Every structure is written in C-alpha cells, then in structure tokens.
C-alpha cells in the first residue's frame, strides 16, 4: 500500500457519516479495493433552541394553562434537556481510486429527555384563596387524569436511519487541478428509513429517524473542494463543502391522549395521522486541517511495507471547521390548519452555525494501523435562528483493511 493512499484512506472519515461531529477533509476517497472501518461513540446534548428573532429559547413552547372561565392558572415552562448517546459504525469501500461507497449504521444507545418543568403562577383564584402553586396545578391535573410528565428514557439500542453514501473525486481527471493541490468531489448520500418514530403518546419522547436526529438529510448532495498548498509540504489543507440535503415527507400517527389526556389528545381534530414534510438544508462548510505533530517513524512491520515511511500520516493532526446551514420551512399537513401552524411556527426558515474540531491521533508511524479520533461540534456558541443548539462530542477509532 502506498503511503499517500494510506493517508488518504485514513482521512476519509466523512463518507456516510453523521457529519454533525465530524470535520475532516471533504474530497478524500479510499484506494480501490480497500475497506475502512470506523466506529465512534457520539454524545449529544441539547438544551436550547434559537427562536425566530435569533433569541435563545426553550426547546418546547411554554404551556399556558387556563381554569375554564377562571383565568390563567399558570405557565408551564419546559426547560427540556435532551441527551442522545449514539454508536456510529461505518464501513467504506474504495470501488475506484476516485470513487468510494460506504454504509453508516447509527445505533442510538439511549435517549434521555428531562422536561425540567418550572412554573409561573397565574391569576389569583378567589375560590382557592391563592394563585395556583405548581403543586396545586399538578394535583389539579392529576385529578383529571393528566399525569405530570417525568424524565423519559428510551431508544435503548434502537437503530437509526441507515446511511448509504458515494463519493466521487472527479478532480482526479483534471490534471491541472491536481498539480495545484486542488481536489474536487461530489458526494451523494441517502438514508434508509430504518429509524424509529417517536411514540406519539409521549409528550417528551424522541425517535431515531433522520428528522428526529436532525443531523443530516435523507438525501444529500455535496460538492466539495480542498486545497493543499504545495509550498507547505502538506501541513495544511483547506476545504469547502457545498451541500443540499433533503428530508422527505413522512406520515405519523396523531396522539390520542391515551397517556396524556389533557395535553395530547389531538387525533379527534388532527386526524388519525398527519404528514410532515421537513424543511431541507442548504449550506456550506469550511475546514482547515493542520498537521500538529508529524512525529517520528519507528521501524516496524508497517514502515517496512511502505515505499516512503515518512509519508505516513502525522501523529497528531487537527481539523477545524465552520458550517452555515440554511433551514427551510417544515410543513405539517393534517386535518387541522390551526394545529399545523402550532408545529410549523417552531420550524420556520432559519439557519444554524456549526463549529467543529477533530483531533486525530494516528498510530501508523508507530506501527499500529489505527487512528484514534476525538471530535466536537458546537451549535450553541454562535446563535442561529429557528434551530436547535445541539452540541456533540465523539470519540472513535478507525482502521483500514483489505480482503484480497
């Protein structure tokens, strides 16, 4: 295996990945007939969203509760916190030197949703002799069959949407670009609907579909370019990825109030099912990969098998990135135009600003064909609009192999 190809192989982490926690180089493909296995653990935190004016707000709408004809009981403020733990396994294969395909298998290990409800008292109720306290309200609600929503834990070992991907680096056939250190690639990825929809009867649950995870679309088209300035001896690579990702319309069951009769009985007017056509994504990502420490090459079985051992991947490299994503309006369609609006107003057109960093510790120079990765993606530092501020950390390892 030539060292340049090996290095390329090990940097090809973007293919068929959940891009949320990954930066890396956008045009890399695998050498022909080579496999790459990549396994990562992702821990995703979600506490806030950005509203229509870009203000930081809660994930869920405030609930105004009224005593029938008696004024405002109070306001329930759900300061929900969602945690996803995901195991992401990827298998990629180089069909041609310029064409790789891959399969991503995301498995949600566990999802936790803490509603963290707080209470703002409403009007004074003369018959009660006070305004409703939070305890008063939930006693009242319980007496009508409405339990207080507690922490929800679910999606234990549940498959998310499988991802298939294909990347074609067409700049291989434009020699003038190659001489200048420029790469261009086209990537197509699609999701198979293997994820699980949220339980409609649960007020704070989530599912494992692409829509629930909101990391990527169900069909994505990427045009990527990167440039490695020849004068810097490969110490810097800058990349640009333009993308459009579509989410398809799906049908969901409407809640019937079986578990939450007061606040989740929608089927009588929404209809037995409703359709959701989520807003697509359009955006770009800028990346810069820097060799932090090239490191020594030890005399090992691996160094003996490559033509240029010094060309093995550096011991430590860092990739940082920034992505801007336009979010299109999501469209709900049910029998109730009013209810559709209550959903659609939470998913109006907006954008998100994502910062990413990935640190790669490559052990190839030391004779071990493995790379360890640690990544961080942040959506909460730079405000967005009508988007959710998910932060994700991940750790993983990857290694190449050939069957023949």
């Amino acid at each position, binding site marked *: 295996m030539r060292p340049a190809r090996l290095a390329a192989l090990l940097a090809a982490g973007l293919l068929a990945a959940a891009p949320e926690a990954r930066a890396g180089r956008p045009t890399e493909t695998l050498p*022909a007939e080579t496999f790459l296995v990549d396994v990562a653990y992702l821990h995703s935190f979600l506490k806030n969203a950005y509203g229509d004016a870009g203000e930081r707000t809660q994930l869920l709408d405030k609930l*105004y509760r*009224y005593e*029938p*004809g008696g*004024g*405002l009981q109070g306001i329930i403020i759900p300061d929900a916190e969602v945690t996803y733990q995901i195991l992401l396994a990827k298998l990629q294969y180089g069909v*041609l*030197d*310029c064409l790789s395909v891959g399969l991503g298998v995301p498995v949600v290990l566990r999802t936790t949703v803490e509603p963290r409800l707080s209470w703002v008292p409403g*009007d*004074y109720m*003369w*018959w*009660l*002799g006070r305004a*409703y*306290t939070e*305890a*008063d*309200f939930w*006693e*009242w609600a*319980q*007496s*009508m*069959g*409405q339990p207080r929503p507690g922490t929800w834990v679910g999606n234990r070992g549940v498959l998310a949407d499988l991802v298939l991907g294909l990347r*074609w680096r*067409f700049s*291989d*056939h*434009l020699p003038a670009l190659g001489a200048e250190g420029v790469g*261009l690639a*086209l990537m197509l990825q699609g999701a198979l609907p293997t994820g699980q929809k949220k339980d409609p009867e649960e007020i704070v649950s989530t599912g494992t579909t692409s829509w629930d995870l909101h990391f990527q679309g169900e069909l994505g*088209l990427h*045009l990527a370019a990167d440039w490695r300035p020849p004068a810097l001896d490969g110490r810097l690579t800058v990349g640009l990825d*333009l993308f*459009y990702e579509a989410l398809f319309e799906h049908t969901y069951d409407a809640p019937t*109030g079986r578990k939450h*009769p*007061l*606040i989740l*009985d929608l089927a*009588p*007017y929404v209809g037995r099912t409703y359709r959701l056509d989520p807003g697509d994504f*359009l955006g770009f990502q800028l990346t810069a990969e820097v060799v932090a420490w090239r490191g020594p090459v030890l005399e090992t079985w691996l160094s003996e098998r490559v033509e240029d051992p010094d060309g093995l991947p550096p011991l430590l490299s860092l990739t940082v990135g920034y992505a801007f994503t336009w979010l*299109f*309006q999501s469209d709900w369609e049910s*029998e*109730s*135009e*009013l*209810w*559709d*609006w209550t959903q*659609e*107003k939470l998913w*109006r*057109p907006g954008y998100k600003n994502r910062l990413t960093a990935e640190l790669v510790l490559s052990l190839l120079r030391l004779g071990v064909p493995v790379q360890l990765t640690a990544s961080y993606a942040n959506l909460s530092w730079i405000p967005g609009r009508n988007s959710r501020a998910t932060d994700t950390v991940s750790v993983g390892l990857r290694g190449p192999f050939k069957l023949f």
Partner: protein
Amino acid sequence: MSQLCAPLAPRIARLLVGLLVGLTACLAGCQAASEPSHVTRLELAGTPYERGFQHGQAVSSKLRSLYTQLLATSILPYLNRERPGIADFLLEYQDARYDDGQFSYLIFLESAQSLERTIPAEYLEELRGVADGAGVPYEQVLVLNTFMDTLVAFRAMTYFLRDQASPRLTRVSFEGAEADGADNDGDGEVDEPGESAMEFEPAPYVARVEIPTDARIRMCLEDKDGVDPRQVRLQTPEAAYVPGDPGVGLGTCGQDGAGLEITLRPPGGFPAASYTSLIVSAGDATLIAEPPPAKANMAREVRFGFTTRGFGKAPWEVPERSFDDGRSQPGPFGVAVRGAASADGTPLLAHHFSMLDSNTAHKHTAVLLHRPEGGLAHATLGWTGCIFGFSGMNEAGLAYAANPCDCLDNPLTAELREHLILAKLLSSGVPMGLLGREVLTRCTTVAEALERLRGAAYTFGWCFLLADAGGDIALVEADSDILGDGTGFRVLRPESEDPADLDPQGRRLGGEGPDDLRLNVHFRLNPEDLDLRLLNWHLRPQRYWTNYYFRSVRSHHLLGEAVRARLGALDAAAAEELLRLPELVDSRDSMNASIMEPSRGLLRYALGRVPATDAPFLTLDLRAPAGEAFP
C-alpha cells in the same frame, strides 16, 4: 480505472452548478408558514339543513378542535371533579353510568336532550346539517350548541353552594364615626345610635360617607365551621393586609361570639376627602381535599366602599367603583344609544362579550351570515360549529346583544325544587343564542322582538339589549321564572319615567339619559330575582352569592363614566374606543366585540384575538347583495 471517471466530470459540474443556482432561487422564494386566520366568515343560504351543512362542511376541523380543546380536554374533565360533591346530595348521580369520567359529559348531554325538546325544529335541522357537513356525531353538535346555557346554570349552582358553606361578611362598623359630628349614613341625622355600623349589604352605591381618616373598620365574618384567620385577606387601593400586619387586629363577634372580627386601621389612616374601598377575602376552618387542590371553603370576595371626611357627598351620590385589584376581570358589557346620545342621532349598539376563552375559543370564531328561506338575512358572531350567537343583527336593522346574568331562577333550581335529592341538573328552555337567532330571523323592530321574547322559556338569567333601525332601544332582564310570579321578563326603555325604572333617588336604572342604555351582568330591574327557602338552603338574589356582582357593578359605573364623556359623540369610532377601554375589557376571557349600526345595516366585528378588540374591526354590510356582504 480512474479513466472511467473522466468523461463524466464536466457534465456533473454543470449539473451541480445548475442545481445550486436553482436551490438558491428556491430559497429566496421559500416563505415562512403564516398563522391561519382565527375567524371564519360564512355566508349561508337555503333551508336550515342546507345552511347547517354548508357551515359544518366549512368548519369540520375547527368544530372538532373546538369541541376537543374546549370541552373534551378542558371543561369536561374539570367538571368531572365535582361529581363526588354533587352525588352526595343528588342521589341520581351515584348511578354507575356516571362513572369512568362520564359524569360531566352526561350532564351536558342530558341537558342538551332536555333542551332539544323546546328548541324550534328549524334549528334542530340546522344542527343536523352541521353534524352531517362536518362528519361528526349529531350528539356532539347538540352539546356544543347548548353547553354554554347549561354551564352558566351549573356554575351558578356551584357559586351558590360555595356561598352556603363559606364565611359571610355580616356586619361592618366604623369605629370613630359614632361621634364624629358628621352624617355618615345620609339620613339627615348626626351621630345617632347605630350610625357607624351596618349590616353588610352588597349595593351599587356606598352605605357610609365622611368617615374619619383615623377610623378603625370592624368587620364581622361568620361561618358555621369557624373562620380561619389565616385565610383572611384585606385589600385597599393602596395595600393588602393579612392578620399580623400593622393596623390589623383580630377578635370575636357575632352570635355567641363565634364569628371572627377583623379590624383594620391602616398605618397613617385612610386618605382624606376620598372615596376608598375594601376587598375582603375569607375562608373557613375546614380543609376540602376533594377535588384537589386542597383548600378552605373560600367565600367570594366582597367589596364595599366609603368616603372619608371632606369628600362632601351623600351615600347615594357615591358609586361603588371599587378599584382594580390587579386580578379580577370585568364581565361582558354593552351599550345602546340613539338620538341625542349618538353622534348623528342614529341608533348604535356596541357589545364586548366575554365568558370563556381558555386559550381556545378565540381560535375558533365565526361570523355567520344566514340568508334563510322565508326569513330575514341576519348575521351572528360566534364560534365554529355553533349556530347561535350572543350578538347579531338582521337586514332590517334589528340588533341584539346578550350577557348571562347569574341567577338561581333557572331550570336547575326548578329541578331541585321539584325532585329534591332525586333531582337531576337538567337545563330546559331555548338557549339564549337561539332566541337571538329567532328574533333576527323573524322580527324587524324592537317591539316585535319583545313580543316574541316575552314568555319565551329561558335557560338562565339573561340580560340583553335590543336596537332597531327606527331608533327604538330596550334593555331586557329575563330569567326562567320558576315560581311563575311574572318577574321573569323585565323591559326597560331609556325614556321611561316609571318609578320601577328609576332608583330610589329617581335616577335612570338603564343609563345616563333618555337615549342610552348600558348592559352588564347584574340585574337592575329585577334585583330580587329569587328568594326561596329549599331544604336547608336559602336561595337568595344574585347580589348575595355571585362572584360577578361586584365586578359588574364596578364595570357598570366605569362604563357610565365612559358613556357620559362621549354622549352626543357616540359613533362607530367612539364605540370602538369604548369597547377597547382597558378597565372595561376582560383580558382573559374576552370573546368577541361588535358595533351594530341598525339604520345603516352595518355590523362591525372584532374577534379572533384575546381580548377580541386587539383585532381590527371589520365591517359586514347586511344590505349588500349576496356574496358581497363581507369586505
């Protein structure tokens, strides 16, 4: 292998550029979702069934969401909680068929089926049309169209029962007034025995004036279970007080000293030469655990006012305006003017209706313009799937606007009186909103409407205004007249000089002059609406038990001031301003607002928001050709 890729590259690049350009263009054109209108405007023509069908078909989803959100997930579970208490004394409700959360639904359904027997056939046909058009069970549509009448009567019963079990303010005295050298009760005598004390009586004017600023007010609260001092709260315009605060004292009073006397002398005294007012809240010593949350038997908040030395007016000259306590909402209100009271002499009826929004009703409002076969075209303001309205006008210019006036002279009391513990809480009669439809369909003048409405079977206490294109206006106070003593239908015309239409001081009960009438939710013509002893209960007139009484009196006086300031200048614009006055508007349960100009056939309406007057007023021209009435 790489050569395989080469021929495709330029084409893919071109495709991609094209795609991105297209997407960018799409992005620029993609619009954010917009909030749908909360107001449905429908022009309905044909037979009653056909009009109902058109209505139901147009609002199917909104009818179902109104029913679900307002009834199924709000009022019904809320009232289900009352079952144990009611089943304790009305044995019928111990039956198993009221189990499993069916109690409140069956209360409404059984009342609806009782009302169905007296609702004119054409409206039942219309209801069937609504049900068929919307694809919902007729039973649900019937309940949706009758529950308000049942609910107000049910609510009155619960207010009354609370009143029976909670502390009462029985006596008030002003320590220091008995020897202050002033005529405190307006009887022409000074410091006569008893002048400083009074049995508490809810009233629209104050009972004591010229009180020394340093007087101590003594209030006696009595309850068979004892009054809990921890539940007592006093509020003046300046501050709120509880026992233990400076200026607040506790003692005993009443029969055998079993009552709780609470005294108040605010630090620094009361403001000089001022009208001031108190709000008294009190609860008894019991703890009611069911239905939750646990609470004492709380009395309605009672209010009384007085003036301090130097104010210079007799008691009957000082209206009980009370004050804004920061939490109570005024009730619905309306005003009718004509002649010298209106800007151009033409009649005008303005109404701001409030009752029950629950963050739901305002999203389901409807303006229905009916063009019935063999009847007058007319419009009502209401809700999707509801064929009734509490205000409306017809093409001849007859306008009406109704408010519920809490009253125990209602069918539920009649049931109780007849069957005692075997009674059921059944409403009967014709729902007010349908009586409104009836006069709009058949009558062209106030006189005709009164003729039709007199003797009608009322479901509750209702106060309403009528106006016509000829300038006739009238205020009506009606109830079910369960004793059959002929007191259930009182009419007041503004020009009336009949002593029954004047207060003891000779002032008009209806308004400011001969050309205006005001509408609130307390009786003025029929203040002694019912006084009846039944079992161990004493059913008394509304002023003694309804929580709305003091608020309505306050609203009545404030509205009077607002009208007085606009007399002779009241046109549609001034009426809009009046309907929007914050001190008059129920900011929680406002439902719709209307300004009707009978002589022009114009109905201006604002709805779809809370308060309704936050929405712009739009105009419906009842005399416009079919299809052109809505703007």
